[in-house]
């Protein structure tokens, strides 16, 4: 079972991201469970959502306390919330930022981990460019398809079409594809340097 926790802020589509990730997994014939952690639902307040993916029925209903993977939609949360609580060593981390793990002060924390599992992508910029709105959730899912290797980009596209239509869907698909390509390149470079 792959357990993913998504951290972001109210208004960034954190809950939708978990839902779309579950749809993408469903499209691949897998079982998936997405659910939010309802706390402060105000715009800008820290929000968490969860997604489990497995090949068999998922019965577990507890919040994800030991995730295999993290998507961090807002790097300013790193100073406010313990985003990394319970993350399994050598887990996957994708952060919405144009900065590096070292520049974010995370170099020590992830020292010795698989470098190709630690990626960043400036998802908000990609969303503004392709969709015209600063909502980073969908491009991050494209990036997550790359970094995790657990979901195909085509499945993410199907999930986007399940949630959006018309220009918004096309823009999000383009943003997800570009994020996928950026993260792939980053992983290749990390492997090259490793």
């Amino acid at each position, binding site marked *: 079972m792959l357990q993913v926790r998504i951290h972001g802020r109210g208004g960034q589509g954190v809950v939708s991201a978990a839902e779309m990730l*579950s749809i993408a997994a*469903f499209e691949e014939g897998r079982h998936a469970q*997405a659910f*939010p*952690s309802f*706390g402060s639902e105000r715009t800008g307040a820290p929000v968490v959502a*969860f997604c489990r993916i497995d090949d068999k029925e998922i*019965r577990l*209903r507890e919040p*994800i306390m030991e995730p295999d993977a993290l998507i961090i939609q807002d790097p300013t949360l790193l100073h406010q919330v313990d985003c990394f609580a319970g993350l399994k060593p050598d887990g996957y981390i994708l952060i919405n930022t144009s900065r590096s793990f070292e520049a974010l002060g995370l170099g020590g924390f992830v020292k010795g981990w698989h470098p190709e599992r630690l990626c960043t992508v400036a998802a908000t910029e990609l969303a503004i460019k392709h969709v015209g709105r600063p909502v980073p959730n969908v491009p991050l899912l494209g990036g997550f398809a790359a970094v995790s290797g657990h979901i195909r980009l085509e499945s993410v596209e199907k999930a986007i079409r399940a949630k959006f239509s018309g220009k918004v869907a096309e823009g999000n698909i383009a943003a997800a594809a570009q994020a996928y390509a950026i993260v792939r390149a980053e992983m290749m470079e990390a492997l090259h340097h490793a």
Partner: protein
Amino acid sequence: MLKQCEGSHAVAEAVALCRPEVICAYPISPQTHIVEGLGEMVKSGELTDCEFINVESEFAAMSVAIGASAGGARAYTATASQGLLFMAEAVYNASGLGLPIVMTVANRAIGAPINIWNDHSDSLSQRDCGWIQLFAETNQEALDLHIQAFKLAEELSLPVMVCMDGFILTHAYERVDIPSQNQVDAFLPAYEPRQVLDPNEPVSIGAMVGPEAFMEVRYLAHAKQMQALERIPAHAAEFQRVFGRDSGGLIHTYCADGAETIVIAMGSVLGTIKDTVDEMRKPENGGHKIGVLGITCFRPFPIEAVAAALKQCKRFVVLEKSLAVGIGGIVATNVRMAATGMGLRGYTVVAGLGGRAITMKSLTALFDKAGRDELELLSFLDLDWKAVNKQLVREKQVRRSGPVAEAMLRDLGAVAARNY
């Protein structure tokens, strides 16, 4: 058709497939997405011959449902928490009058302190209101139970409450199999009322009844619920024939054969319990002889079925998301009645109040303790005793100790609610 969707959406689709004629809606979390979904379907024309009525309160929602049902319409509404309490007077009237309304309760705690998260306090506060109460374990079961609920309600002329865990189910995206209209039509016949307000054949419904007949009318309500104990398994069997799924029924057991300890619960927590039990049964984890009894039908309470399921065990643990302040468990009290004279050790565990997460880690420790008979008769899972005791001391020392909820939050240094 298999679909990955939100639990609320699955329920809205199920209700629409049941061809409701009147839907009364008043929003309250975590139920709102269900009636929003139905409202969209009525507006788009996907759901036809249905009146969607926005009312001014939950009391009005149930009152309109009563009027619609008495007028011969298939009526549906949904609520939660304080909303259910606010409509309580009308809830009793619906069952007292024998009107087959179906209502979803998206289970949520009751204030004060105000809390939007899940537990079973709302539905269980209405356990004696005369409605049948069914509890769903998964979103698939929530969907299926609604289809069965309309059939059961109309056959017996009794209202049915379908209870599903707020947020945990209502807001969870998971895989559901949504049946076809043909399947639902084959299972659920058109509503044929026992009583109807018809200008061509005038009757009155809701007479005042004095001591000469009140007890008899009440007894008949009880007798009807007892009939449900036979109809519910029959409907589940018929449902399986039409839809090919085992859904509904009175109870479900899991790994119960040869189990010395049986854990009893209702709703979505059964999934976490089953995963815990699977782990504990493994030889490398001690090979615990532990099984599960899920109660799907809480009203009428299936006394015989519960007793039969407990026949071979040594002890039972009732894990419930409710607290009867001043005595302990609500479900446990009912289970103990079923287990009368069986010589079993029974433990009540109150868990998950107000959305407190129920984790495999805590359950494993709890069941391990239960297996060694080291559990107290009444316990509270993951209760923060330090915080509780601090407040108790404060109240002893200071007369003006102030409001309790605010003191707890201050001690915790909580700035925002969280549950992970």
